[in-house]
């Protein structure tokens, strides 16, 4: 599904990856481990075409990620990050904004579906009328997860998406992603809850190898 082929990347003179080879198959649930700053988020940038490698290529579904293929790729891959930045207005405005994209025409953003997802993640419906800046970190994370569900994506790049969630929601969200057989998930997290998930394949970015 996603293949990093001999990726080398430096940033500001610092070498982040040197000849990285990593392959993630469809339906796999991968957790990336390693200390902060090691480049976990850069991997996501490489997949989405936000970062271009110094050498090597990234392949998605067998197609090389380049300036032409990224546009289609970005409609298939869901990227959720911890600093999740939905707009400045009301939550409902942000949802309309995302739904208005041409690529998202035809998707179900109806209130029934949205309420259902909000119930699933323990969110009160009136949060839709609140301004995004008024939400707590955990609420913003859950909105981002809800948006990803509305977009019907099957590949998930998750960057610390449970960091602001409480003890009850954390394992729920982890299970939500890790136990769906149709989805391919790459999760970056310090949280052991992800590592403890039964389906998790852990790749250690420091040692550059799969942990068994």
């Amino acid at each position, binding site marked *: 599904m996603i293949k990093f082929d001999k990726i080398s990347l430096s940033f500001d003179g610092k070498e982040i990856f040197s000849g990285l080879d990593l392959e993630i198959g469809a339906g796999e649930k991968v957790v990336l481990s390693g200390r902060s700053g090691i480049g976990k988020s850069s991997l996501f940038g490489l997949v989405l*075409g*936000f970062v271009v490698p110094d050498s090597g290529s990234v392949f998605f579904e067998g197609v090389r990620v380049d*300036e032409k293929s990224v546009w289609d790729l970005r409609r298939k891959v869901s*990227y959720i*990050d911890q600093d999740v*930045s939905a*707009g400045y207005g009301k939550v409902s405005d942000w949802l309309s904004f995302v739904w208005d*994209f041409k*690529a*998202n025409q035809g998707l179900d953003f109806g209130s029934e579906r949205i309420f259902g997802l909000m119930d699933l993640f323990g969110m009160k419906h009136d949060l839709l009328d609140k301004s995004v800046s008024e939400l707590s970190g955990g609420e913003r994370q859950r909105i981002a997860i809800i948006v990803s569900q509305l977009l019907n994506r099957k590949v998930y790049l998750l960057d610390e998406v449970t960091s602001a969630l409480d003890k009850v929601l954390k394992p729920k969200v982890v299970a939500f992603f890790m136990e769906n057989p149709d989805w391919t998930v790459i999760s970056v997290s310090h949280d052991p809850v992800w590592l403890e998930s039964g389906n998790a394949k852990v790749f250690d970015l420091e040692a550059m190898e799969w942990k068994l």
Partner: protein
Amino acid sequence: METIDISIFSLSLVFLLLIIPVLMSSVYKLNMIKSMLFSVARMSVQLFLIGIFLKYLFLWNNALINIAWLFVMILVAVFSAIGSSSIKTGKVLLPVLISFSAATFIILLYLNIFVIRLDRIFDARYLIVLGGMLLGNSLRGNIVGIESFYKSIRKDSKRYLYSLSLGASQHEAYLPYLRESVQLALKPTIAAMATMGIVALPGMMTGTILGGADPQLAIKYQIMIMIAILVSTIISVLLNIVMTLKVCFTKYGTLRNDIFTK
């Protein structure tokens, strides 16, 4: 009624007024004397030279020379706009030049042909003076517009990239920033129009009235020029941003990081 002439001697008496700020600056230790006198001197020399130049320009009234001079004015305005912003000049010079020229020429010609209905549409008096007003007044808006657009995307890059990952096309992703930048660029002009005539008489009106025009005629010119400034500012700000998009963004839809001077 003609404008009352001011002799060189009488004009020098206005310079005498500068003794007041010089005294104040030395008494209160404002440290402004040097920069102030330098500014006044520079302005006086520039205007003096321009005065002579315009005298001959109006005398010859050659359409081609007039257009050429207007183009020089546009060039200076463009360099000034890009130079004051944090965007590197080399990258955006051509697109900005084209959009400034288009906005200014189109509006100017429209005014000269349809509103003022000149016999000679490239008449120096109207082309240069009105063109200068359009350029001067839309300049600040353009600096603000292009600066705000690219800087805000750079600052907000996480959200911008997040929009792309949610399926936005490049256009859909940058639209909110475009909206904000254009609104910001036009705010001063719109605000000025709102209080125009109530707070103070604008420069052009003062000039036309002192030149002997009837106030009724003066306000017609003022309305005309304010609307022209508004329209040419919005055209040039939008065109500036739209035409620089190609050089400032990569084909991946990300903002190039080598377009800023800092």
